[in-house]
């Protein structure tokens, strides 16, 4: 049963919160500026709680069931991280307070920069970007600034493999780059011949996701980076898939010059129904001066008697700020708590278990689904939701059917280079028992696809909502609701 909207349940003169009477004399309002209508709904606190609790029941989340959304790393979000982010010492500090009153916060940011640097091999890290795509924008602007700083203004060509996430080309275009798509070779790696043919003096760089969106570690990564460097370009690393590399491989050592991290993927800050994310950027020494401002430095090292002193610092050739204030601090607290809890062995265990889980599930379903680029995967893998003897079935039908078993579908139709793609990322926090069950379900669905395709075509059956009409939504374009015309009249 759909839940009525806030506007449907509104009744004149109800409210959910009250404020104290003013304890100061009341000032005259500016009559010319007063608003007449304020058509917001009026609801009691209890109704608000019930409304949102009820609609929450229509969501699937990591806390509810398996959520193998490829490239999104829907791992468990430890509860203690939520508690610490809400400690008054973190929640109630203003971004413009003098540094001497926020040494704890600045110290935490500094340590987070250091941890991210050590894990990835980058010497300098800037925390400001708000999300992965925002980190990409930051990284590409850094590459642009680096070339221009050297007076090399003709370098505007950005190479992007055809397996890349859509944000990569969009980011490059937004940064004034010309996008050239690179094919993948038959093993799912960057095609080195194609890459070499694009290496000229207009090359700004390449954007590489590694492990790539097929879940494969690019076997050509070192050579590809060398080719780009020899041509005078720089390598951008999309760190979306860093989960597989924690303690197993430092991206900077493979030749990447600048990379964003997704704290909401790799470092377990919750996805929040679509945000807030956090997309810090790591760079090699040559690019440190271009980081967005400000970064946190340890201005005074401190000794036995004196605590160190942390401060903000504007890098010399900074690209500028990419948002207000210092970044998503609440996410820094969560990610930092996660890291220090795991420590060095725990971080490696994350990568190992993530890769183990992906390969295990892959082994369990490989007889039922076609797997292109069939080799050992990293933290995720891509299968095809289509069969020759089930001509009407598409990947979307498989996805919708999975919901009937309490499983969130994998990422659909991505990467674009795989027909009817289902991109599956189990993550490290899932048990063997869960994976066994999921494999059973997926194998059953593969069988149903041939034997009773209608069951898939009309799925989901067990969810509170059936398939929604997206064409109607785009045609009608109802993007909001309001109080009824006769509102407030009894």
């Amino acid at each position, binding site marked *: 049963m759909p839940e009525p909207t806030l506007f449907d349940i509104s009744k004149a003169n109800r409210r959910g919160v009250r*404020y104290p009477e003013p304890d100061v004399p009341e000032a005259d*309002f500016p009559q010319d500026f007063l608003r007449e209508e304020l058509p917001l709904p009026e609801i009691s606190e209890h109704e608000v709680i019930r409304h949102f609790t009820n609609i929450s029941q229509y969501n699937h989340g990591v806390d509810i069931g398996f959520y193998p959304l490829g490239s999104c790393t829907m791992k468990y979000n430890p509860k203690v991280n939520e508690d610490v982010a809400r400690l008054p010492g973190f929640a109630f500090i203003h971004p413009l307070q003098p540094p001497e009153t926020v040494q704890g916060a600045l110290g*935490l940011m500094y340590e987070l920069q250091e*941890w991210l640097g050590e894990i990835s091999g980058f010497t300098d890290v800037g925390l400001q970007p708000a999300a992965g795509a925002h980190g990409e924008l930051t990284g590409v602007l850094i590459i642009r600034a680096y070339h221009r700083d050297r007076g090399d203004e003709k370098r505007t060509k950005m190479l992007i493999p055809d397996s890349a996430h859509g944000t990569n080309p969009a980011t490059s275009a937004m940064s004034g780059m010309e996008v050239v798509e690179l094919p993948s070779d038959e093993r799912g790696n960057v095609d080195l011949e194609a890459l070499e043919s694009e290496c000229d003096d207009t090359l700004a760089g390449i954007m590489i996701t590694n492990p790539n969106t097929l879940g494969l570690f690019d076997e050509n990564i070192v050579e590809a980076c060398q080719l780009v460097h020899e041509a005078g370009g720089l390598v951008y690393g999309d760190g979306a898939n860093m989960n597989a590399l924690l303690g197993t491989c430092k991206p900077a050592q493979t030749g990447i010059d600048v990379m964003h991290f997704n704290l909401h993927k790799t470092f377990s800050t919750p996805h929040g129904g679509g945000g807030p994310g956090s997309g810090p950027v790591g760079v090699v020494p040559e690019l440190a001066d271009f980081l967005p401002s400000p970064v946190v430095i340890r201005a005074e090292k401190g000794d036995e008697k004196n605590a160190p002193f942390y401060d903000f610092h504007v890098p010399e050739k900074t690209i500028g700020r990419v948002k207000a204030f210092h970044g998503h*601090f609440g996410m820094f607290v969560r990610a930092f708590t996660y890291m220090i*809890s795991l420590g060095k062995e725990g971080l490696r265990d994350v990568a190992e278990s993530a890769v183990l889980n992906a390969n295990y599930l892959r082994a369990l379903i490989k007889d039922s689904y076609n797997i292109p680029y069939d080799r050992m995967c990293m933290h995720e893998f891509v299968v095809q939701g289509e069969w020759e003897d089930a001509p009407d079935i598409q990947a979307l039908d498989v996805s919708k059917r999975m919901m009937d078993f309490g499983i969130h579908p994998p990422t659909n139709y991505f990467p674009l280079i795989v027909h009817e793609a289902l991109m599956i990322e189990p993550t490290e926090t899932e048990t063997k028992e869960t994976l066994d069950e999921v494999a059973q379900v997926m194998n059953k669905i593969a069988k149903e696809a041939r034997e009773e395709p209608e069951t898939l075509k009309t799925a989901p059956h067990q969810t509170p909502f059936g398939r929604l009409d997206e064409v109607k939504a785009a045609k009608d374009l109802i993007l909001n609701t309001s109080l009824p015309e006769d509102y407030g009249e009894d």
Partner: protein
Amino acid sequence: MYTPHTDADREAMLETIGVEAVNDLFQCLPNEDLPDLALPEGITEMEALAELQYISSVNETTQELTSFLGAGAYNHYVPAAVDSLLRRGEFYTAYTPYQPEISQGTLQSIFEYQSLIAALTGMDISNASHYDGATAVAEAVNMALNRFRGRRLKFVLSPRLHPQARETVHTYMKGSDVEIVGEDLDPESDPEELISLIDEDTALVFVQYPDFFGQVYDYTELGEAAHDQGAMFGVHVNPIALGLLKPPSAFDADIVTGEGQPLGVPLSFGGPYLGIFATKKEFVRKMAGRLAGETVDDRGQRGYVLTLSTREQHIRRERATSNICTNQGLIMLASTIFLSLLGKEGLRELAALNYHKAHYAAEQINTIPGYLASPGKTFFNEFVVHCPRPAAEVNEILLQYDILGGYDLSESYPGMENALLMAVTEMIGRSEIEFMIDILAEETNA
């Protein structure tokens, strides 16, 4: 342990995969040895909590200090119901609602947020939010640039548009040929001064309401001047002020952006916050960001989906209007719950409370010889104080008495060394205002 596998599990899984050891799964890596990270060993939850409690205790909070700091982030009360709902795993452990059948909670809350923001700003439509107020302004500039397909390259920004929003615009526009004007005007000049800068090459005129100095202006004439030249008109708002003040639609704004933090989001040292973005219906296809739309399911039930995704990067790739691929999800939800709780009367009451407190503080400051607080100006909950000495010195003295005085305007406006930007919200009591006044009068006026 964070990961669940027993040794027996691991062995059984490796056998199924057909390898002997976990290391065999990493043969594709170019490094022969696994890196030896120079990091400490892990710690337990109770140790981690203690460590973080210690780090947090080093900070001095707005609960311990009396804070008159605003400048784009405001210390407001957050009703308990907001966080209680945010902590539901159904909301915060979900992701972008790609699969609408099992994401109606998120989708309906986006639709309700869009509805509340449209009602609050008076605009036709709102998107599902951007990262923060500053990036929302940058996306507005990007939208205007795209709307005119690069044929209009001039952007007129008010000097009293948030300095960090303007800096963000400059960063976003690094790869383009746009010309940004207006920022160098005398920051204390009237907004009408911007009119002479608007011409047929102007894509967008952008102001703030209340502006960065807290002042409230009638932008009708400026908006008309922009439209006369065929330019778009944008207004950046403080959403709490709109509980009291005419919405920006009254000035015929084409785009309304805002920092949504005051709507139930803790200060949290600057983020995560919320970028409000609303516009007229005719521009919906030019707008970046996620959008939820109403529809029905195959059982005839009302439901919601993400819509108009053909504007977005995952479909259009390098031809997309923006690279943005998420919204502020949970923060957007916080503001939706906050506005639901306050409703029409609550928001009015909160805005009025802020207005009265700020005006009382300004009035009292004006009784101190040498101090001048926004005389003759209309303002909301924030105002400029001209001090008899550098604002930095005044702040230092106030801090000795556990008061965060305000934002030193010379940090963004060279030449305004003696000017302090002070905000007064409902969190500050009369006695705290009067204590601050006493210190100003007795300790800083020597």
